[in-house]
Structure formats: C-alpha cells, structure tokens
C-alpha cells in the first residue's frame, strides 16, 4: 500500500482527508482484486474512517461570537451573539 497513508492516525485526520481516504478504500474494495485478508483489513479501516467522518458531521454546532476590541482596535475577547 505505498499509495495510502495507512499510518495516519484516523482521529487526527481532517474531515476532508478522512473523506478522501474513505473513497479510496471503498474503490479498492469494490474493485475486488484484493486478497481476502486485505479486504477485511480495508473494511475495518473504512468503517473507522466512516465513523470519524460521522463524528465530525455530528459535532456540527453553531456558535456565534463577536470580537470585543480594545481602544487600539486589537481583540481582547469575545461576546456571544444571539438572535441573528
């Protein structure tokens, strides 16, 4: 598997990277020219990637804040914004 960053820990992957690798895994598995043991390994990797993507999708939460600026116009903190 020289073309796949298998070593990358999934929980540190960005959504986009996990997504791209999941697509590669599914493609390889669907082409069916992998050995049986490899196909099981790919499936497990794919399942983990999918779970990671889903976790990132579930974690979508809106949080809106406005920066508060000091006299010099530099940010000193945030205040929650609601009702918009």
């Amino acid at each position, binding site marked *: 598997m020289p073309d796949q960053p298998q070593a990358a820990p999934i929980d540190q992957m*960005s*959504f*986009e990277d996990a*997504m791209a690798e*999941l*697509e590669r*895994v*599914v493609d390889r*598995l*669907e082409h*069916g020219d*992998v050995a*049986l043991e490899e*196909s*099981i390994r790919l*499936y497990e990797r*794919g*399942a983990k990637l*999918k779970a990671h*993507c*889903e976790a*990132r*999708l579930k974690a*979508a*939460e*809106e*949080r*809106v*804040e*406005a*920066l508060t*600026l000091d006299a010099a*116009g*530099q*940010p000193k*903190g*945030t205040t929650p*914004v609601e009702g*918009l």
Partner: protein
Amino acid sequence: MSDLIEDIAGGNAPEFTVSELSGAVKRTIEGSFDHVRVRGEVGRVSRPRSGHVYLDLKDDRACLAGVIWKGQAARLETMPEEGMEVIATGRLTTFPGQSKYQIVIETIAPAGLGALMAMLEKRRAALQAEGLFAPERKRPLPFLPEVIGVVTSPSGAVIRDILHRLRDRFPRRVLIWPVAVQGQSCAPEVARAIAGFNALAPRGPIPRPDLLIVARGGGSIEDLWGFNEEAVVRAAAASQIPLISAVGHETDTTLIDHAADRRAPTPTAAAEMAVPVRRELIAWADGQGARLSRALAQGFGTRGQRLRDLSRALPRPDTLTQTPRQRLDWASQRLPAALRAVVTRRRAELQAAGSVLRPSTLKARNDRCHDRLETLQRRLGSAVANGERLRRRELERCAARLRPQGLVRQRDRTRLRLEEALRRLSRIAATRTAEQRTRLEALDRMRESLGYEATLGRGFAVVWSGDEVLTEAAAARAATTLRVQFRDGDVTVAPEGAARPKRRPGRKPPAQGSLF
C-alpha cells in the same frame, strides 16, 4: 517731472501702507469667498512631512493654489491625485507675506462618476502590475472550516444572511469582527480586521479562523468606496487565511474582489462557498458505509460461490477408490489358487530335471573338454616354427633390393642444377653493374652542367681568397692576394689600393638649388 506733478495732483486719494492694503484685500476676499465650491483638475500635489497637503487646482486658463491642513487631510475620503477632476469645497484666504491668495480646502471629491472610475481603474492597474491579483496567489478554500471569521457590520442583513445560510448548510463556529462598512473609518477598520484575524495564534484564547469572509450589502459606489482602498486590497492580498469577498451586489466590483481568493456575488453565496451541506455529507457517509459493507459481502459471496463451484468439480473420494478396490478384491480372491498352481508346476519341472542329473553325465562332459585341450597343445608347437620361417624369408628379399646406384644418380642431378644457377647469377650481376655505371655518368654530366665550373666557360670568373669564395667587394679589399679562377686556370692578383673609397651611387651633389 511729470510723475511728480501727477503725484501731487492725486494727493486727495487715501494712502495705505502695504500691510493695510494687504489686510483690506484679505478681509474683502475672506468675506466674499468664505464658502466656495470650485471645480478643476488637480495639478502638482506635494505632501511635506508637516502633514499638510499643498496642491494646485487648474483649468485651461487659470490656476488656484490650495492647501489642505493636516487635520482635514486625515479625514478626506479620497486623496487628491494629480490629473484628477475634483470639486473642492473651502474658503479663500490670502497670504500677505507673498502677495498670494489660495483656497483652504475642507472637502475634496472626485468630480462625477467618470473621474472616480478613472481613478479606480488607475489604482486597479497599479495594484495588478504589482502582482496582487495574480491567479497563482489564490489559495484554495478549506473543504470544511472549523472557525469562520466574518469581517462586517455586526448588525444588519448581511451577517444575518450569512449566519442563516451557514445554519442551513453546516453550523460552524463564527467570529464576527465588527467594522464600519462605509465612511472614512471603513477602510482602516477592515484592513485591521483582516490583519488581526491573521495575527491570532492558532491555539490562542480566541481561535484563529480557517476562512475569512469580508462582507457588505449593496450600495452606491461611494458607499462601497472603502473596499477599493489600497490598505484593504493589500490586507486581503496578504491574508494567509483564505478569504472570500462579498461586497455589494453581483454587479458591483470593488478592488478587494480582485485580491480575494474567491469572490461571492452576495453574502449568502459566500456562506455557500464556505461550507458544504451537512445533510449531503451524512448521506454520502451512509452511502460509503453501504458500499463498504456491500463490497465486503460481495467479496465473501464471490469467494463462497467459487469455493462451492470448485468443490462440485472435485470428485468424491470413494469414487476415486472404487475401481482399485474392486481390482484388489478380485486379485486377492485369485491369489491363493494362483500360488498353489505355480508351486505344483515348479515341482513337476524340478522332478523332470532331477531325473537326468547323474555323475556319469558330468564325467562324459569333462572327458570331452580334456581331449580338446590336448589337440590344441600339439598344434601350437608347429605353428610357432612356421611363423618364424615365413618372416626370415621376407627379410632376405628386402635386403637384396637395397642398392647405392639410385642415391648417386640423384646427387649428380642436383649438382648440375646448382652449377646452372651459379652461371645465371653471375650474368645478372654483370648486367646490373653496367646499368648503374651508365646512370652514374649521366648524373655526373648533369652535375657539371649545373655547377659553377660550366659558367666559367660562358665568361664568368670566381674570386678566391685562400679557400673562400669572395662575394663582397669589402672582403676583396681586405684580402692581401686574390686568386681569379677562369675556365682554363687561375690568375693571382693583388687588390689595388685597398684603402681607396668607392664612390657611392645616388649621392651626386645637386646640380642646381633645391626647389625645397
């Protein structure tokens, strides 16, 4: 004299000092022109360190000096540039020290849309030439930003539109950097906001956004002018965080749009560019999961099917052994009978052979062999004697044929051939010597005709001094005796008057005065 008389004649007119007159002019001018609007083209502009701006306003016939005081200059919406058609508002004043008047400008604005657009185009071209809008500077937007920074007015439809669309597609953490989106503070605030978001530490108390949106609703070109300012364009171009500009309506283009990584026609569109649709991604992930399971199941299914196919093609083990087993049974049944038959047959054969086997039979055979051996021994003695006789006769015959006459004849023949060869060799040598001599004589004749001795016959003579041939008169004069060689012999002479100088040719005294 007449001047003096005139002076006296006009004596009843009031007399001013220069300062008085200048003061009166100043009052008149400032009183009459305390608020004027004047349209003209900006001439030379200078900005000394004091912060005041000095410029000329002109048209095709006149020129008016102008000044913008430092405090006013900082508040100007548009800085005057040379060649710009402007309308300046202010008051006239005089400068008595130099007999000058000027306009103190309070506001200055481009005269009409054409002038504004011309200035905008000029600025755009200059920034483009710097490479700020180059396509290779554009960076791709992140697929799914975690934190989105929005530079806009904190109240109003724009931020609401953006938040609504983000909520619909993919709720994210949003940081709003409040700025004025029009007026004089717009440009510096927007520029500072873009730079400020970039300056945030990635893991600081305020998270650094992965994406910036600079947004403003529609408005007149003057309203949007802040987003054309160089400071804003430079801040957008310098932003390390990918930036979407969404300023004005779709038809409005401001310079920040050129420097941004993406330009959105509306704030809503900017939100659409910023995040993917969460529902679609969930559906996509489900689809991927389904494909994954299906592909694995299919892999198992295909393999299972193949296994079943193969095992069907594989024959049952007992069918493989049936035939051999039958043959074994059959053979093992026949084995005892066959053994018995063989033993019986062998026994009969043994008895038949044993019946003729007696000592007398062996003795008869032994006697026959003995007789044969004796016969052969007798024949051997006579055969050796015969062989020897035969060989001796052969040797005697060969010795009789061996005679010396043949060898002598061959020697005489060889001697005759040697003598003949010697005779031919001496003939050839004589001929070659004669040829060489003839060629040598011919060469000698040629040498004589080419050498100097032949020239003696034609009247030339050679002058010798001792063993050397003299070719120079100086050498002849230096010699004590000279030997002159003619064709038929030599004459010895003494050189005459060795000290007498020879007249040099070409040095005749001038026969007449030189013309030069």
